[in-house]
């Protein structure tokens, strides 16, 4: 049910923003669309670059340990067209992130959604959404 709701949120955001998802290179070579992860933590760094923007989160695990995750987003251009601006995400923000885990690298994922502390959910641009 939780996953269905997550899909609902993402699809709503997509439909509402009227955006087209700009396709990019092969998602499946890098990420596993069967491994959806959810993290909650604090943003530590943002790289607003091409071909993929990227942000880093100190994610708190169930055992209270903190792990820094590297999270890939769509290109800044795609994000802008889908309603992001450069100030949408900031270092220090507490966020909940869902994404598809990297096939090989540890603590890395392709972002599906970012939910801000105020409840706003934004699409991260992953091509893994089915």
């Amino acid at each position: 049910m939780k996953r269905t709701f997550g899909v609902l949120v993402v699809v709503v955001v997509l439909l509402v923003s009227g955006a087209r998802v700009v396709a990019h290179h092969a998602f499946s070579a890098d990420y596993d669309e069967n491994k959806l992860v959810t993290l909650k933590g604090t943003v530590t760094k943002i790289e607003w670059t091409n071909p993929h923007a990227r942000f880093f989160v100190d994610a708190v695990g169930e055992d209270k340990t903190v792990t820094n995750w590297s999270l890939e987003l769509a290109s800044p251009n795609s994000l802008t067209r889908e309603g992001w601006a450069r100030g949408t995400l900031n270092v220090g923000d507490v966020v909940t992130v869902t994404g598809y885990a990297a096939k090989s690298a540890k603590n890395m994922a392709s972002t599906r959604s970012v939910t801000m502390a105020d409840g706003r959910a934004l699409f991260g641009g992953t091509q893994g959404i089915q």
Partner: protein
Amino acid sequence: MRKRLGVIAMAAAVAGLIGASSSALMSAQGRGGGSAPKVDLSGPVPKLPDGTVDLGGTWTGGGPVQDMEAQGKFKPGEIPLLPWAKKVLDSRTPEQDPHAFCMPMGVPRQAGNYPWRFVQYPTHKQATHIFLLWEANIHSFRQIFMGSTHPANPDPTWFGHSVGAWEGGTLVIDTVGFNDKFWFDRRGHPHTEQLHTIERWTRKDFGHLDNQVTIDDPGAYSRPFTTTYTATLQPGDEIMEYICNENNNYGIAGGFRQ
């Protein structure tokens, strides 16, 4: 699948209810500084002062992305690959796609999901050049020499040497001199330096532009084959800068690149 369709149907209903409140999320950047204007995409084809078709506007689409066979509406196996070329196609994997390493997609794949523009020059009299400006991938351009001819032995390049002419309302672009390095699609359809493409661009109405493209490469295909891709106007959108090689991490997540 059915459950997902149900979710999407629910989402559409909800989207209709909350659409108005989310317009604040829309950024002006990349959209010409304002919200998308109301435009009739089925309106008439615009013309330049001398009656030539005006190809202006920001377009997306017009070429293959994932699979030239499926998107070109060919039946499986209909594209006439020579045996060696079929072997190459079957052996290619996404990790090898040059486009993922910020190299050009060539013709006709470059006209894909990233926005692009035709620039006709000049417009106050017959054009000598037409440029195609690509947002990505890569941020580059292609030039069409109008009313010109190909050199005898062009250096192989990613976009080839293009000459163009109008046939009524259709821009015909003839290109030779390609290198063999780009892929026609993500699936990996190959070609050789013998590639010769003929594109026939016809603006059907205000918002739609057909690209009927013939691929003629006796080095990889036993006969020429033709299909049509359609580009769609994106009113209010502008090409944005996209420097692909500034931070390309493709392959790090998948472990096939350090």
